[in-house]
């Protein structure tokens, strides 16, 4: 096969790379936001969040992937037998730990007075968080979220260890089958990762700048 055909095969891994990183990103939002608010506003159970963050930020993704996939598959074939699920699960929970820290900084930036104003019109703590803090926290977090997303695109490469045929796995196969050329497959793979990383990060940044201007920060 010539280089072009091989490159097409690499490109066919893009949907998988993208869907793993996007779903993990969304899982990260769903996990990270509540964790951040618990950490700031429910200090009594903050240590649980702290432990969670330490574990998921302290253990390499590749180790987590192996533990959750090969370790849990025999006991819980559903859902841990599904490599795609495990990929999104592990990367999403890891991203949640990261995002929790991003949002925590943003919550401080938005300021407690917005909460007090929310309580003064009759909102409960968690409803004030939802209606008043969350929209502003996102505007504050876009820079951090952009780099978190870039991180996820890159970390999705680790899922080759559980056998998902995304870009990294395909580069690896090409390199193994090829005539000793280890450079071309990975250089082309790298180009694909760069192309995937920047559009969303760029868009998030732009959106954040516009929002911040509107909010007056």
């Amino acid at each position, binding site marked *: 096969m010539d280089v072009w055909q091989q490159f097409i095969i690499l490109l066919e891994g893009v949907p998988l790379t993208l869907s793993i990183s996007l779903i993990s990103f969304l899982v990260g939002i769903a996990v990270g936001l509540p964790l951040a608010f618990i950490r700031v506003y429910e200090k009594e159970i903050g240590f649980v969040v702290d432990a969670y963050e330490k574990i998921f930020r302290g253990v390499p993704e590749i180790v987590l992937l192996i533990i959750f996939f090969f370790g849990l598959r025999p006991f819980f074939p559903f859902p841990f037998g599904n490599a795609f699920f495990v990929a999104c699960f592990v990367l999403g929970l890891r991203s949640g730990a990261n995002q929790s820290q991003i949002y925590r900084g943003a919550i401080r930036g938005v300021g407690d007075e917005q909460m*007090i104003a929310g309580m003064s*019109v*009759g909102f409960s703590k968690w*409803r004030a968080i939802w*209606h*008043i803090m969350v929209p502003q926290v996102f505007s504050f977090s876009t820079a951090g979220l952009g780099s978190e997303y870039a991180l996820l695109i890159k970390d999705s490469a680790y899922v080759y260890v559980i056998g998902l045929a995304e870009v990294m796995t395909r580069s690896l196969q090409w390199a193994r089958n090829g005539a000793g050329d280890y450079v071309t497959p990975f250089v082309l793979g790298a180009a694909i990762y760069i192309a995937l990383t920047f559009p969303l990060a760029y868009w998030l940044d732009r959106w954040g700048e516009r929002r911040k201007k*509107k909010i*007056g920060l």
Partner: protein
Amino acid sequence: MEARHVYKTYGIKNPKKAKKEDAETCVDIKHVVEAVKDVSLQIRKGDIKLIFGPSGSGKSTFLRCMAMLDIPDKGEIYLGDECLTAPGVDLNKARARIGFVFQHIYLFRHLTALGNVELALRKVLELPKDEARKRAIDALTEVKLTDCINKYPSQMSGGQAQRVGIARAIARNPDIILLDEPTSALDPELTGEVIDTLRDLAKEGTTMLIVSHEMPFAREVAEEMIFYDEGGVVETGPPSLFFNAPNTDRAKQFMTRIINRTTRE
């Protein structure tokens, strides 16, 4: 609305966890600020009362206790017949019946003027969309802000923003409005428009408890003035008492100083 023997202390970080021996030995008494010491105050429907006194004396803390934004250490707060300091009271419901206007305004920055006023109507009172919008626009009309309902707080002047703050507080038709120095963070030329708004509210018989040093305004609208210093009420009486001859020396000194300042301006 009524406050009975309310106390609020600052300084001990976590009074629940502080053990007795800690309180006696480790906590430096100087760090404990008694912002509210045995304060009682009653305000009936349609009353306008004005609290004034030196800065740092605890006026704002007391006002926040009235709204249960700060929980008093001791004493009771009544809203109508309901005791808000009793255990098990739904404070969110109670706060929805109290309007609060902040010194530093605290508008929701991600929402327009209309959004700021509408939010609680939609999500707290759970009014249907049309009615919430109508009431929000009514409130904004009342503070004469119909021309900037779609502006964000960052696009408004301080006076406009504070009038939105007032609209946000009155839109729910609260039983009482508590105003914490509504003009003191504004440029002098902007205080007039906010004072005019408050004057209009006063004419309509709105129940208000105001912390303010706007003396001409106080004289005009307040039924009673309360001189507050060092965490307690020093003297109460009608404006005429304070403007002619207050009974206590402290009030006398304070009035002299504040009137001199006003005339110098």
